């Protein structure tokens, strides 16, 4: 490497490390920046003003080209993320997952191990690996610092690499032999799929990790060259709720618990209070309209099914395997028969609802919308411009937001839950007051 006058790196603070050890320390702050736009430093229950400032600094750095907007409420500043989701090519919150703090010894050992394995091209024992590693780093001037690392620590590091799937081990006699797992995947062929699914599939940050590999070109000894492309990202996304990324750790653990049929202990933060429960997760539900994720689970303490918001689950501890999981899984099928949303308190009892829509021939798209959005309900044609929607759901009240969207076309609304009709009628009167509409129409 040639020497010339050395330029300084971009940042002026050489010692600032933006890395994080624990996602939960930043999750709360980022939820405030991305979703709730009016939170100020004093509202965030920050351990110290410096913690808030550090996280704001991280947000500004990680969100890059996307804006952290500065607002003011009664003279006090507040900060929020301000971008139309269709302008987002890659979820900026994925950067959070790429800021895991690094152990100096682990990163050294990792890259040296890759090099050693490539040199030797055969399975190696721990002692052979250690000897080869020392040979690699000995020429470096600061290698003496590594002399304190013992065999047990290195064995643990190899074990962690095995757990991530980079290494495999085989036992011959009483010795363990380590070798690298092969990369047989033609990752280049996945490029477009990765661009799409990294923003739309659960745990999409894994797609982002794979795109990083593609862009580095280090996933294979002879990686395929990308096709020349006029545009890097051919997709844009409507209804992209980036804040889902804040819950990926929880989602990953829930999927694991479902796979293993495992009961988990959760710490549930409901803003007004924190509760702990033992639950058996059964299925994850995502709302495309409201941007929330839920897990349907059996509350083992109360022995009844319940829905839990993923963004409120703070911590998960794995417990025992449920013996009668396949029996309990049938709850899902039963629940989905009359599922409108996530209301499950009255399950399996249902409430009946009927809504008759009256349109004109110019507004037939309303009836089309009814047909598309009916979910478990039934649409009955009464005439060319008059249709009835009928459904039995666990909570007719939960349907109110959807019912309201047909405001102006509802000829009749009845339900076995009398609150629904009364509420709709009261809200119409409230509308008159809000907009100064004369109720003598």
């Amino acid at each position, binding site marked *: 490497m040639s020497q010339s006058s050395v330029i300084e790196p971009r940042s002026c603070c050489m010692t600032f490390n933006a890395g994080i050890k624990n996602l939960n320390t930043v999750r709360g702050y980022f939820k405030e920046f991305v979703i709730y736009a009016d939170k100020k430093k004093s509202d965030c229950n920050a351990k110290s003003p410096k913690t808030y400032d550090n996280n704001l600094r991280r947000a500004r750095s990680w969100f890059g080209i996307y804006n952290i907007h500065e607002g003011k409420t009664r003279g006090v500043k507040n900060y929020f993320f301000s971008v139309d*989701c269709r302008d987002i090519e890659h979820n900026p919150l994925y950067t959070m997952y790429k800021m*895991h703090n690094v152990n100096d010894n682990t990163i050294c050992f990792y890259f040296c191990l890759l090099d050693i394995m490539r040199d030797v091209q055969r399975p190696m024992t721990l002692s052979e690996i250690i000897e080869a590693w020392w040979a690699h780093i000995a020429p470096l001037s600061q290698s003496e610092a590594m002399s304190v690392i013992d065999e047990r620590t290195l064995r643990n590091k190899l074990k962690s690499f095995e757990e991530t799937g980079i290494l495999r081990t085989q036992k011959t006699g009483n010795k363990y032999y380590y070798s690298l797992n092969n990369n047989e995947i033609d990752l280049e062929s996945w490029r477009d799929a990765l661009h799409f699914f990294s923003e739309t599939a659960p745990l999409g940050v894994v797609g982002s990790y794979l795109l990083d590999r593609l862009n580095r070109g280090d996933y294979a000894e002879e990686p395929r060259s990308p096709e020349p492309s006029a545009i890097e990202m051919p997709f844009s996304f409507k209804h992209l709720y980036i804040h889902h990324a804040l819950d990926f750790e929880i989602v990953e653990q829930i999927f694991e618990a479902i796979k293993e049929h495992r009961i988990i202990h959760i710490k549930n933060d409901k803003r007004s209070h924190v509760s702990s429960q033992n639950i058996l997760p059964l299925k994850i539900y995502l709302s495309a309209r409201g941007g929330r994720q839920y897990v349907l689970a059996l509350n083992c303490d109360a022995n009844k099914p319940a829905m839990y918001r993923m963004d409120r689950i703070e911590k998960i501890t794995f417990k025992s395997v449920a013996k009668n999981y396949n029996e309990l899984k049938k709850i899902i099928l039963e629940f989905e028969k009359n*599922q409108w949303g996530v209301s499950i308190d009255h399950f399996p009892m249902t409430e009946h609802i009927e809504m008759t829509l009256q349109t004109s021939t110019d507004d037939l798209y309303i009836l089309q919308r009814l047909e598309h959005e009916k979910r478990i309900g039934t649409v009955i044609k009464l005439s060319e411009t008059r249709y009835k929607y009928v459904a039995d759901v666990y909570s007719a009240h939960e349907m109110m937001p959807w019912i309201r969207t047909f405001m102006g076309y509802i000829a009749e609304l009845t339900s076995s839950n009398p609150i629904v009709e009364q509420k709709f009628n009261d809200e119409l009167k409230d509308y008159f007051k809000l907009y100064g509409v004369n109720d003598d*129409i």
Partner: protein
Amino acid sequence: MIFDELYSVYYDVAARVLKKLTSCDNINKNDLIELISKYSEAENDGYICEKLLGGSWNLIDRNDNISISHFPVQPLTTLERRWLKTLLNDPRIRLFDIATDGLDNVEPLWTADDYRVFDTSGTSDPWEDQNYINHFKCILRAIKKGLDLEVEWASREGYTCVSVCRPKLLEYALLDDKFRLLAFAGEKEITINVARITRCRTCQSDAYWIEFPADLDADLPDANTRLTSQNQRQQAAKLGGEVSNDNTVTFIIHDIDNAYERVLLDFAVYQKQDLQKLDHKRYKFTLCYDKANFNELIIRLLAYGPKVQVLSPKLVVDKIVEHVKRQAELFRLTGSKL
């Protein structure tokens, strides 16, 4: 685990630097510092420079000794393989020409039984229809290669429309599980449901045009009013256009039944402009919206009933009032309530 140092920017930058050092002979230290600055987060490049080039990571030291001799080839992790395996069960994977070798020995992370989007509008695109798949691949190829498209489609009213256009983006909408083609056709922008396309081929053209029946009210936006991504802004500027979003809506949230939190979650997909707390139960919220999605905005606002009180623009207020008045009149006529 999904949060692991192996996926971190530190490993990413180290791998890039080591790859550079092992594959090029005459590397200037400034080149490495620039490489580190380019790929590390803005605040972190000094830290990474010190650790990587300063010797703390024992990969490179201050005397330019390197501890490795080959550029690093990093195997995929089990998490990465399992995530790819899971995608093989997604019906939309048929839209892409992927190689599936190498995924036999891993289990998917989840199955269709474990996960569901429960409130889409039930109008998914036909992911298994071969014509649809062919049209999608044709559009994708055209976008990536910068080619023009000749496309024929059926409008919502059933009319046949044809266009020669420059495709720019494939927009995916989770709410209706559909793709739409966003394209320039001369001075206009067109948006076409991919599922409505009947014919599609790439071409090279000197002129763009759209042909549709005279009695079809196709109020197409002028070019550059919809395509507002950061990169597209730059491209639009090159074409001589300018993209702006002057359409804002301001409303008061009356925080009853947790409306404040629900509104902020629901409208998180919009660009926020301002949010102020008026008192302990009321918030004033301003956000930007796209004229082309005006109806969707109205639907979202109506869903909250009188908990959301629109202040401006007059266009939106008038639309809400129109719905309210029509509803009151309908109830009076039918004798339902009020």
